[in-house]
C-alpha cells in the first residue's frame, strides 16, 4: 500500500476522527457559502461579535444540561438569533455609532458568558472548548443537527439568491423593486447566526470569524462572479476543514487552530500569486 493512502487512512480508524472530519467538511462548506455575503457586505465585525455573543447562551445551556449536548445547541441557537436581531436593530436605528454599539454588546455578552462558565466546576477546560472548539468531541447527534441546519441555511440562501444579491449590491434597488428589504436583511442575519452555531463545535467562538471570512476572501481574489465565488469558497472551506484536522492529528496541535491556520495559509498563498484580474 502506498504511503499516502496510509496517511489518509490511519486517522479513519478512529470513529471520533471520522465524525470530526464529516463535521469539518460540512462546516467548511456552509461557512464558505454564507461567508461570501459576510465579506461582500463588509460584516466581518458583525460576524465576530455574533460568535462571541453566543457564549452566555452556551454557558446557560451547559449549566442547565450539566454538559449534555442537546440543550447546548438549542440555547446557542436561541441566543444567536436573539443577538442577530438585536444587533440588526441597533445597526438600523443609529443612535450611537454602529461599530461602537456592536462592540458594547459583544464585549458585555462575552463577559457574561465567561462569568457564567466560571461558576462551573471544570471552568478552564470547558471554556477552552467553547472558545476554540472541540471537533473531536462531536457526536452523531451533533452531526445530524449540523448537517440539517446547514442544509436549511444553504437551501434558503439559494432559494432567495437573487433577492439577497440585490439587497447586498444595491439596497435602494431592492426597495424600488418593492422587495421586503428589512425582512430580507434580518433573515440574512439569522442565517449567519445559524451558520455560526453550526460551526461552534468545530472552531469555537474565538476562531469562528476565520471560517466565515478567510475562504470567501480567498475565493474573491480568484473569481469574477458571485456563484463561482460561493462554490470556490465552499471548496476552500471544506479542504481547510479536512486538511486542518489531518494536520491536527499528525502534528498534535489543537484542531480548531489547525483548520484556521490552513485557511490562512491558502489565503496568503493566493494573495501572493494571484494578480488582480480584470
Amino acid at each position: 500500500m502506498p504511503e499516502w493512502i496510509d496517511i489518509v487512512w490511519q486517522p479513519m480508524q478512529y470513529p471520533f476522527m471520522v465524525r470530526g472530519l464529516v463535521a469539518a467538511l460540512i462546516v467548511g462548506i456552509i461557512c464558505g457559502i454564507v461567508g461570501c455575503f459576510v465579506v461582500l457586505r463588509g460584516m466581518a465585525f458583525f460576524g465576530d461579535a455574533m460568535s462571541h455573543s453566543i457564549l452566555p447562551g452556551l454557558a446557560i445551556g451547559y449549566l442547565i444540561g450539566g454538559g449534555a449536548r442537546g440543550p447546548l445547541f438549542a440555547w446557542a441557537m436561541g441566543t444567536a438569533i436573539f443577538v442577530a436581531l438585536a444587533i440588526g436593530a441597533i445597526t438600523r436605528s443609529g443612535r450611537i455609532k454602529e461599530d461602537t454599539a456592536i462592540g458594547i454588546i459583544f464585549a458585555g455578552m462575552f463577559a457574561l458568558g465567561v462569568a457564567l462558565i466560571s461558576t462551573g466546576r471544570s471552568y478552564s477546560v470547558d471554556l477552552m472548548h467553547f472558545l476554540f472548539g472541540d471537533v473531536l468531541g462531536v457526536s452523531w447527534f451533533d452531526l445530524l443537527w449540523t448537517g440539517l441546519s446547514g442544509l436549511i441555511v444553504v437551501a434558503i440562501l439559494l432559494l432567495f439568491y437573487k433577492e439577497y444579491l440585490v439587497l447586498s449590491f444595491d439596497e435602494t434597488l431592492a426597495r424600488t423593486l418593492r422587495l421586503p428589504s428589512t425582512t430580507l436583511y434580518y433573515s440574512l442575519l439569522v442565517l449567519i447566526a445559524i451558520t455560526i452555531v453550526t460551526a461552534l463545535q468545530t472552531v469555537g467562538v474565538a476562531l469562528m470569524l476565520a471560517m466565515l471570512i478567510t475562504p470567501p476572501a480567498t475565493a474573491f481574489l480568484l473569481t469574477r462572479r458571485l456563484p463561482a465565488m460561493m462554490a470556490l469558497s465552499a471548496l476552500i472551506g471544506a479542504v481547510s476543514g479536512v486538511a486542518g484536522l489531518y494536520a491536527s492529528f499528525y502534528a498534535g496541535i489543537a484542531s480548531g487552530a489547525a483548520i484556521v491556520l490552513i485557511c490562512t495559509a491558502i489565503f496568503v498563498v493566493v494573495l501572493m500569486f494571484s494578480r488582480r484580474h480584470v
Partner: protein
Amino acid sequence: MTVDTEHSSPPNTGTGREVPHSADAPILSVDQLTIRYGTATAIDDVSFTLQQGDHVAVIGPNGAGKSTLFKAIAGVIPTSSGTVRIGGSQPSGHICIAYLPQRSHIDWTFPVSVSDVVMMGRIGRLGWFRRPRQADRDWVQECLRLVRMDALADRPIRALSGGEQQRMFIARALAQEAELMLMDEVMTACDAPSQTEIYGILEQLKERQVTVLVSTHDLDDAAARFNQVMLLNRSLIGFGRPADVFQPDQLKQAYGGHLRLVETQAGTLILSDSCCGGGMSDDA
C-alpha cells in the same frame, strides 16, 4: 438609431408588483412635499407635476435635497408631509420607478458582471422563486444594446469606466421597464465623449416616452440640453424653461455665495464654484 421592433419590447413576464396607472393621472405629481430629518428640513413644501416623456434637469447646490427628493419620489424614504403620486397612486405600489445611484454609493469590486447587474432590474417582474428565463436574458441583452454596452455584457463591473457604469445603470432601468428614471449625478465622473453618449441615450429614452429627472452640477448643460429645469434648494425656487429659471434673483436665492453673477454686454455670465462635489452632503 434604428430599433429592431421584434426585440425592442420587454418579455411578457407579468406585471409583478406593479399597480396599474390611472389613464388621466400624470406620471408624477408631487404636492406640498416636506421631508425632515430630526429638526433639519431637507425638502420644504415642494410641489410640481411631470407628464409622461418629460425630461428635467434638477440643479441646486450640494445639500439642496436633490437625492432626498429623488428617493422620496422613488418611495424609499418616509415623507414628513405632502404626497407623491405616480400615475395616480403611491410610489410604494410601483416598480416602474428606477433610481440610478451615485457611483460613489456602489461597491465596484462586487463580483458581478454587467449583465448580472442589468438582470437585477428584472427581479421585480419575476417574483419569488422564479429564475430568469431566455426571454429575460434576451431583453437584458437588448437593453445593453440600446445603451451600446452589449459588447461588455460579460465584463466584471470593476473594469468599467465612469461613463460605462452609468450606461449600465440606464440599461438596468430599461430592463426594469422603468417609466420614470431618477438619475442622481449621472454625468459626474464622465468625460466629455461619455456625456455626449449619455445625452444621446436620453434622446432615445424620450422617444420611448420615458420620463427622466437628472440631477446635475453642470448649469451649462442643464440650460443647453434640457427643455425643463428645476432649481432646488430645499424648497422649489424655480421650475420651467431654462430661460425662465436662470434668472439672477432665483440663482442667487439657490446658490447664495457659491455663485457669482457677472453682467456682461452679452447677458448674464454665471460663475460657479460648487461643481462635482461627489455627493458629499447631498445624500442624506
